């Protein structure tokens, strides 16, 4: 395929998150020798998987013009539900791992449904609706154990439940959470770009009224995005509980902000209608690599927070610059598209 120079410029700008990621990887590899080791990369990927899973769910919500502040609390609640089912059980009978996980995901999806219904049926602003469920889910998580931790979820030395393997096992040398991120991310990317549902999400976020007039079921689309985000958060809660072999009611605090940061870093507009799942995954990696690299370089924890903030603000600024540049390059783009099309047809 032949491309004009304007296309190349725009493509480079679009790929800037990838470029930043590559630069960070090279930088940290050069500065700290232990950064580019299989062991460190494996740990790094496991950390990233957590925020990436949240970010993927969040991407759909944001693309459709919403926001989901409740994901951190849902993760906490999900872990507590699974933990409670495994230790205390339901009506006195401890459930199996599969049932515990499924019920935890169901509860997470239900909180998402609650978000969606509040937003679409009662017209509550997404920010407020999910702020409400942020508190509700957190409170529910604390209520389940009266604030205590559900310990020993992996079972005893003689009788393992198998719960620990969800977050701790490896497949082909890669940690399971990383596989989850890859599979969920790949499916989400295909759904967003190649299915009617995905296109409807973009349409709803781009111009809700026009989407409605086009016959798109706007409410239904929005509800699905919140449910999916909730389920992703639930999955994260289970992975964390499995890694720790215990469920803490405070798990996932402020995770929602990390997820939003990853989404924004990945080029998704908080106004909706513009962005991608792939971008969010890269955004999650940028944040993860940055945190990991700075720790290994021995940068103070306080500085790390400042740097993270600077990176996020810079990313969004560059995003706006890209939009302006793109509209300035539009005539050149149109010319190259027109010639491109003639070659293709």
């Amino acid at each position, binding site marked *: 395929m032949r491309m004009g120079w304007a296309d190349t410029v725009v493509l480079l700008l679009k790929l800037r998150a990838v470029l930043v990621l590559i630069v960070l990887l090279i930088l940290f590899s050069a500065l700290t020798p232990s950064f580019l080791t299989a062991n460190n990369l494996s740990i790094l990927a496991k950390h990233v998987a957590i925020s990436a899973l949240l970010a993927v769910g969040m991407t759909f919500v944001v693309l459709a013009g919403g926001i989901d502040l409740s994901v951190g609390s849902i993760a906490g609640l999900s872990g507590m539900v699974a933990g409670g089912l495994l230790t205390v059980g339901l009506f006195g009978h401890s459930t199996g791992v599969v049932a515990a996980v499924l019920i935890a995901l169901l509860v997470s999806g239900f909180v998402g449904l609650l978000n969606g219904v509040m937003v679409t049926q009662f017209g509550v602003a997404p920010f407020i609706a999910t702020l409400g469920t942020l508190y509700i889910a957190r409170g529910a998580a604390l209520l389940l154990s009266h604030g205590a931790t559900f310990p020993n979820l992996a079972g005893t030395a003689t009788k393992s439940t198998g719960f620990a393997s969800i977050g701790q096992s490896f497949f082909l040398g890669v940690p399971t959470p990383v596989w989850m991120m890859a599979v969920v991310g790949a499916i989400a990317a295909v759904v967003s770009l190649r299915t*009617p549902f995905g296109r409807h999400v973009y349409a709803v*976020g781009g111009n809700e009224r*026009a989407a409605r007039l*086009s016959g798109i079921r706007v409410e239904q689309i929005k509800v699905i995005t919140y449910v999916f985000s909730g389920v992703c958060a639930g999955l994260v809660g289970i992975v964390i509980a499995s890694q720790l072999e215990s469920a803490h009611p405070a798990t996932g605090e402020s995770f929602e902000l990390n997820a939003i940061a990853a989404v924004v870093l990945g080029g998704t507009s908080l106004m909706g209608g513009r962005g991608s799942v792939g971008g969010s995954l890269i955004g999650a990696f940028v944040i993860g690599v940055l945190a990991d690299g700075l720790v290994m370089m021995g940068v103070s924890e306080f500085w790390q927070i400042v740097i993270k903030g600077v990176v996020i603000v810079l990313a969004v600024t560059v995003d706006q610059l890209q939009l302006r540049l793109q*509209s300035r390059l539009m005539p050149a783009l149109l010319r190259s598209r027109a010639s491109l*099309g003639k070659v293709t047809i």
Partner: protein
Amino acid sequence: MTESIQGSLHPIALEARGMSKRYGAQLALNDVTFRVRRGAVNVLIGENGAGKSTLMKLIAGVEGPTAGEIWMDGKVLRIRSPRDATAAGIAIVHQELAVLDNLNVSENIFAGRELVRAGVLVDQRNEEEQSGVALQHVGMPMNLGEMRITSGDLSLGCRQLVELARSLAHGAKILILDEPTSALSAAEAATLYRVIEDLKSRGVGIVYISHRLHELLHLGDYFTVLRDGRVAGEGVRADVDRAWIVECMSGRHGTASAPVGEVRSAAEMTLVVEELSVRQSGRPAVNGVNLEVRKGEVVGIYGLLGSGRTELLETLAGLHRPTAGRVKLCGKVAELKNVTAAIRAGITLAPEDRQRDSLIPDLSIRENISLAALENFSRHGFLARADEAGEVKGIADQVQISAQDLELPVTTLSGGNQQKVVLARCLMRRPIVLLLDEPTRGVDVRAKADIYAVLRGLAMQGLSVLFTTSEMEEARLLADRVLVMARGRIAAEFQAGNFTDEALFAAASPMVGASA
């Protein structure tokens, strides 16, 4: 007249019987029966607020009726959503475009009705093929590369055609066009007329809503006039003329007109533009324009979409920085760095799109009017409400806003009155030069005449008015002098009453004979 309608050749494709729609206390539509005939253009006319758009919303499933039934093929249709209407073969091209700016052209054409392969995946190839055919039909052939352009980057006219292509791609039996040409250039409109003829011959029932009478008389086969939510008249083409339409619409005789003032060749120059050039999106939009406006003179700029007329006005209003040339105001060079500077200098613009660029729907009429001049009423940082209310009242009377109460939300006003609110706001700044971009877009005939009279009155008091228009009639009725703009340049100049439609149109058409 009813007899000839009953005995007509075209079978009825859809009949909306006894349609009523109530919004709060207001009955927007009152027991209206409307028939759409197959293979014909069914014209729906009425002033703003007469109930045309409401009726169309009911037929297209955007809103539900308070009472009434829609019959199609001998059955009552249950239309509860735009989806149901589409399924029944009813397509609507909305006046406020329902194009998704963030999706590309072919995605837009299939929005909400995506083609699917393998059960779940969007069949992009097939969509693009069919889009190509539909775009060809609407006279805007596109290749693959162009079809993948984000719709937001297209001009208003192109987007309108994309929406039309959308209805065609889905084989609509009934096609509703709500003011389809308001955003189109003459060439694009001509294409649209051809598409309509083609659709008619294929048996599609077309509902056509427009304020442009000459267009309606040219296209229409059946005419229905609405007034105050009721049917005020019905007729077939042979029985209908301009006078009948205007009479039915307004309930009185006569057409829109305004007294044309005598040319003030002696008055001083207030606005002088010298060799002004502006670039937009990397392209020259305005190219070495020279023009002058005298005190108390009304100058019209006639031009097609994309001729640079909007960019010219926006530059004079301080919205864009010119790349060359200068602007003199009352003999002194004016530095129009930004909008504030332009307003201080005495130049104010009433933009084309009042919903998007002017009015704040949540605020009252008074607040909308005083918005740009609040510093006039500041006393130690607080607003002096009495001063504000007094001045707003005076200006509202001057532009003849007919509102029960200036404290009502601005959205309670009709289109014509909303436009007067925009005018009033501009006047609050006590401008020397008033710029108006399409001053009567989407405004009905009677309100147009009002606005012309108001502008004439203002000119009489010494205001210089420079307006753009894409309606020849407006240029004729309002301007002392008409400049024609094409491809960023002033292509011709005519004195009032001294030009024909043909001459105006020929001057405005870029490069005659360049495209077939």
